[in-house]
């Protein structure tokens, strides 16, 4: 296939060179920073496919957003910050929104995008305190933040232990980067509040080497393990846990550590592993039927189409849906179909995804409702716990969607964003 692609490419070269122009201005540009190569590709590919298929479906079914076609140029970052910056600079002109899919790149883009007036939407990742819209005008991280996630886990553990986790040992295995370190402070606060003992076990990039980590776990025998992993780190950790016979239902991952790619390599050993999620798995939704009809039926699916309906593919659909919805809201607010990046931001801030609206969009019961406001860019904070069934090879939700512990997170968000505002001399908005 690649050779065929190359041949087609070469024959097209002459035409392409002569007609090389920036993407036509009549369209809405949603640049994509993806990573289909490198240590994080197993997670990057299904997610990117979800985005592309959704955009293609909207273009084919509705003729774009309010008549404006979506263009979605891909830029391969390999999860590398420096390449991410290059991709951003290359695509930022007239871009509606950037979805960096990497906490490191998000940190990088927050000041740049704020200066350039481009929206960044880091769906459930990135800088948690960006949930404070008063300080972070251009950054959104709805529907839930890492700090919400940390308190969800604690809440789930509390429930399993009938509200008393005093003296319990909880270990956090985390990717030794900004991403993995995000929940530490929250978990420390929660530890003070509920009286559990937290131990921290960092895993270095790319995450394959975890022998020392699991040796420590075998020695210290924690009651629960929480994980902030991504890429190969997830599957290695789950395999290691299975091999030391750690009870899998006491092992809980964040929403980025709970996809099929992470559990399948461990086979039956992964049975019972839990992870948070803010969207449902499966293919029984209207949006999947539409994608089948408008994209797959024509053979235009992104990649090989094998990730259809997986957790990260569905998350990609959700993320793309929110981004498209923001454009629709912006068109409504400003009364024009050809919106500018600044108008797009207004749309993103006014996104109100009620259960009814999600049903109209083909996402009935797919995710909990959420709403952005001027002050709150972090959404509802609702997430549920899903559990892996290794026999049926299926994820299923085992709890209701629950709120995070706002007592803990709101204080921390206010602190962290105030610090950022002081450093960068940002005046608070929305007052």
């Amino acid at each position, binding site marked *: 296939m690649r050779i065929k692609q190359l041949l087609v490419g070469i024959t*097209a*070269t002459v035409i392409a060179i002569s007609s090389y122009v920036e993407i036509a201005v009549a369209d809405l540009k949603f640049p994509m920073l993806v990573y289909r190569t490198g240590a994080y590709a197993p997670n990057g590919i299904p997610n990117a496919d979800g985005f592309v298929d959704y955009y293609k479906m909207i273009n084919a079914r509705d003729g774009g957003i309010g008549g404006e076609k979506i263009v979605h140029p891909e*830029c391969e970052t390999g999860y590398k910050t420096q390449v991410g910056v290059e991709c951003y600079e290359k695509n930022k002109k007239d871009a509606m929104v950037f979805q960096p899919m990497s906490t490191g790149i998000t940190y990088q883009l927050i000041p*740049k995008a704020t200066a*350039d007036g481009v929206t960044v939407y880091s769906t459930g990742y990135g800088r948690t305190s960006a949930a404070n819209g008063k300080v972070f005008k251009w950054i959104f991280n709805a529907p839930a933040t890492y700090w919400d996630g940390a308190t969800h886990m604690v809440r789930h553990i509390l429930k399993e232990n009938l509200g008393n986790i005093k003296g319990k040992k909880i270990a956090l295995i985390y990717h030794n980067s900004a991403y993995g370190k995000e929940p530490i*402070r929250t978990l420390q606060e929660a530890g003070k509040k509920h009286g559990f003992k937290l131990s921290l076990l960092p895993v270095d990039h790319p995450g394959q080497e975890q022998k020392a980590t699991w040796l420590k776990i075998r020695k210290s025998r924690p009651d629960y393990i929480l994980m902030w992993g991504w890429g190969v780190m997830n599957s290695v950790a789950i395999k290691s846990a299975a091999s030391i016979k750690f009870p899998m239902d006491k092992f809980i991952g964040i929403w980025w550590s709970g996809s099929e790619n992470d559990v399948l390599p461990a086979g039956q050993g992964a049975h019972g592993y839990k992870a948070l999620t803010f969207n449902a798995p499966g293919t029984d939704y209207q949006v999947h039927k539409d994608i089948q009809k408008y994209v797959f039926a024509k053979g235009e699916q992104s990649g090989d189409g094998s990730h259809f309906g997986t957790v990260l593919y569905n998350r990609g659909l959700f993320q793309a849906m929110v981004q498209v919805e923001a454009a629709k809201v912006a068109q409504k607010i400003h009364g024009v179909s050809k919106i500018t990046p600044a108008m797009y931001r207004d749309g993103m801030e006014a996104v109100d995804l009620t259960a009814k609206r999600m049903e109209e969009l083909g996402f009935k019961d797919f995710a909990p409702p959420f709403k952005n406001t001027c002050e709150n860019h972090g959404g509802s904070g609702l997430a549920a716990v899903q559990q892996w069934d290794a026999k049926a090879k299926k994820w299923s939700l085992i709890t209701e969607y629950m709120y995070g512990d706002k007592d803990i997170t709101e204080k921390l968000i206010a602190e962290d964003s105030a610090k950022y505002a002081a450093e960068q001399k940002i005046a608070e908005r929305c007052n």
Partner: protein
Amino acid sequence: MIYKETGQYKSSYKSDHAIFPLIQDKIAFSTLMLFAFIVVPLIMNSYWEKAILVPFLIFSLAAIGLNILTGYCGQVSLGTGGFMAVGAFSTYKIMTSFPDLNIMIIVLISGLITAGVGILFGLPSLRIKGFYLAVATLASQFFLVWLFNKVPWFYNYSATGQITVSERSMFGIPVTGANAPPYATYLFCLVLVVILGFAAKNLIRSKTGRSWMAIRDMDIAAEIIGVPPLKTKLSAFAISSFYIGVAGALYFAVFLGAIEVTESFDIMTISFPVLFMIIIGGLGSMLGSFLGAGFIVTLPIGLKFIMVDMVGLSAVTAKHFEITIWGLLMIVFLIVEPHGLARLWSIAKEKLRRWPFPY
């Protein structure tokens, strides 16, 4: 016939020792400088700044640093990433501790701090040589990155270990932070590169430089003729680390603005690429440092531009090709021209001298 030295007589030692002894070289270099200082800032945009020019200048500086140590003094080092991290974190600490200090001074102090650290890690070079030294410097790479990730004091106890630059200005124009205009960051780096580049060039032509090369060519012989190995090797480590530290400071403060030590100063993102730069550019050549840096910075972007934007391949296919082409070029280069791009340039000069009557 274009590039001939006939008729250019040197009547003083000064003119004989000039960096550019030929009038043609002088004209070419002055034109280049005029172009770089006046034309480029006028026509550049933020894409050129962030993707090509600023990384090129910063990596040139790092390559000069490593070339001093490896190319001129013969001490192989894989610790470039670690030393750049020292420069970056020094800048961050000084910047946050002394908010009123000028950014240029901060960058230079960071270089000096890195020089100190470089001396420390250069000490083993007195006992171990060649590949063994490479392993020892590799240890410094891992140790320094680990240190900056482990000890929260270095990142001011921020929750995520990320360090973020705050805005600093030169002559009222911001050169760091997101509001810095492209020409400002570019010129800031360019001024440093030109000054430090000349300094390095002259240092290499001085007694210090000659003793480095004596140690490189045969350390026992050098010692016998009176070159002190301790002083020479440590001075090479110090000066090399100074350059690398300044590069690290610029990489953090001017180029990226926010850095996470494990990712940004990883051995695969810094140490090996900088080593490739001096190997491809030419070991023991100033010009080679620039050519190598230019080659390694622009190659992926150039390939991507050709394959994705012009040919229309998908981003991922292009990436796979890029990785393959990259590896192939490395091998081809080392076979065809082991002395690097700088050697190609001197061959070209020879040809130009004889043109149009080559033999």
